[in-house]
């Protein structure tokens, strides 16, 4: 066994066009908590830089996509940059942001405790999941509440967190046929991820429980309970407690 000395993190940052009005920054490496945190930090730094023509920066598992208006980017260019295209102009700006990002570790994301009522009417696939993995339903709950997950990205619908850190014993392919309607607050497993449905919607993940928390509220700022890089722990609650919390939240 060899001890590798700690090295400064030097992610391989690479730029690629995402069509003619967006660009993607790939951070290299695999999906990891530090990768997601770096993506979040880079996206924040890009937005804070207020580069003329940049509409927004969106972080995902190990990448950041930057949406921009080529005409505004070009209009804001210095006179000696007349021959340079919008993509190249943006990349030059972004390289500066990347260099200034510094080497310090991102602060760990906020830890959010999520109360979940598992099984029964609240999680109708808990029994199926237990059978499929030859585990007792209580064991599934135990395995699901044990880890501290992190939010790799938000996507699929407003406020939907893709949580990373699922116990390998609970990894389950998505349902062959998506359900036409999954109630809001449903806590579900899809492939390597667990997630929570913020709104009633069709869905192909296995629903094992439900939380009374409101994940998305357009009148809040920010509207989403979670941001990429945040950490999440599930806490099992009784149906009575679930209903109490739901009534309290309303």
């Amino acid at each position, binding site marked *: 066994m060899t001890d590798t000395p700690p090295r400064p993190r030097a992610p391989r940052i690479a730029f690629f066009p995402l069509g003619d009005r967006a660009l993607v920054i*790939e951070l290299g490496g695999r999906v990891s908590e530090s990768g997601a945190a770096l993506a979040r930090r880079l996206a924040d730094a890009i937005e804070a830089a207020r580069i003329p023509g940049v509409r927004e*920066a969106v972080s995902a598992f190990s990448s950041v996509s930057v949406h921009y208006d080529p005409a505004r980017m070009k209009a804001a260019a210095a006179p000696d940059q007349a021959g340079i*295209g*919008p993509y190249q102009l943006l990349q030059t700006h972004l390289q500066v942001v990347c260099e200034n990002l510094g080497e310090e570790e991102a602060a760990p994301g906020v830890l959010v405790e999520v109360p979940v009522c598992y099984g029964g009417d609240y999680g109708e696939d808990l029994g199926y999941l237990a059978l499929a993995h030859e585990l007792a339903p209580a064991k599934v709950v135990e395995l699901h509440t044990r880890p501290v997950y992190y939010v790799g990205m938000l996507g699929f619908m407003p406020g939907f967190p893709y949580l990373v850190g699922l116990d390998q014993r609970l990894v389950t392919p998505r349902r062959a046929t998506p359900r036409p309607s999954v109630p809001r607050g449903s806590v579900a497993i899809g492939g390597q991820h667990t997630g929570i449905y913020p709104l009633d919607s069709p869905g192909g993940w296995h629903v094992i429980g439900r939380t009374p928390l409101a994940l998305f509220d357009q009148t809040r700022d920010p509207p989403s309970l979670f941001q990429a890089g945040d950490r999440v722990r599930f806490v099992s609650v009784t149906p009575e407690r679930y209903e109490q919390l739901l009534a309290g939240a309303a």
Partner: protein
Amino acid sequence: MALKVLRAGILSTIQDLGRWGYQRFGVPVSGVMDEHSHRLANILVGNDEGAATLEMTLVGPGFTLSADTLLAVCGADFEARVNGEALPKARPVLVRAGSALDFGPCRRGCRAYLAVAGGFGVDLVLGSRSTFLRGALGGWQGRALRRGDLLPTRDADLALYPSLLRKLRETRAAMAHPSWAATERVEALMPGPHLVRFVRGRHWNRYPEEARETFLSSEYRVGSNSDRQAYRLMGPSMIASEASDVVSAGVTFGTIQVPPDGEPIVLMASRQTTGGYPRLGEVIAADLPLLAQMPAGARLRFQAVELAAAQALLLERERELARMHEALAMRACT
């Protein structure tokens, strides 16, 4: 003042240039499908280009107007009529209070945009007036128009075109409009197949050369299960030569992604914010209005272009719109 909805049409929604800044929370950008027609309609009535317009789809709505209204219609031809008389497209039209404004079925293309001077009186939600249907967010009550709705419009300066105002005052006509019209981009309204250009994307090289050539040389058709979120294409399948698992990442308007069945999908205005399928590339911004006007069954071919060429074309389109803006400002005062 308001538009009273007598018929809703198939899918009539309030849209603007999109809800930017919230994709990090999983909120789709939404916004108009055909940005060019939307912007042109706004310019014609003296609005900011980002003002909300009404996007109509395939079969248009019918209204009565509660006040004199300066409006413009651009995009596909829905045979619009005011009190039974043909309403000309792509120009400012001043319509008298109490008139009936009717949009019929669309003959070619599939979307038209109605701009009213001052814009529609709906609130900003997360910075935008666009309707996101699946999230019941923004626009008019988060949904498409329904019969009986009273769609408010904001106060506007009708004196932008003094000659139209005079004509309406001095005659009993239901509407007044100039004889000129702005130039629209009408490629989509002609029979296809149309050439849709794209910039090659991250996973283009994962496909064997033969598959890439097939994609570039084949005709695709817009599938009937296409909507504001995505266009499903019918044509030769694209099967990757390498393992096709990719880490989910951001997508954009025009991203051409390929799910496991190999049938390409083009992501449109109401796309999700991220995607986990391999991407062939992105349709160029200058060609998105054309694609957005293609109804189910329309035929298209893809052509790869370099990024620099795509952006040069986009900048040229922007200059065209800017010139139109200036020309109209000069016409408006007469």
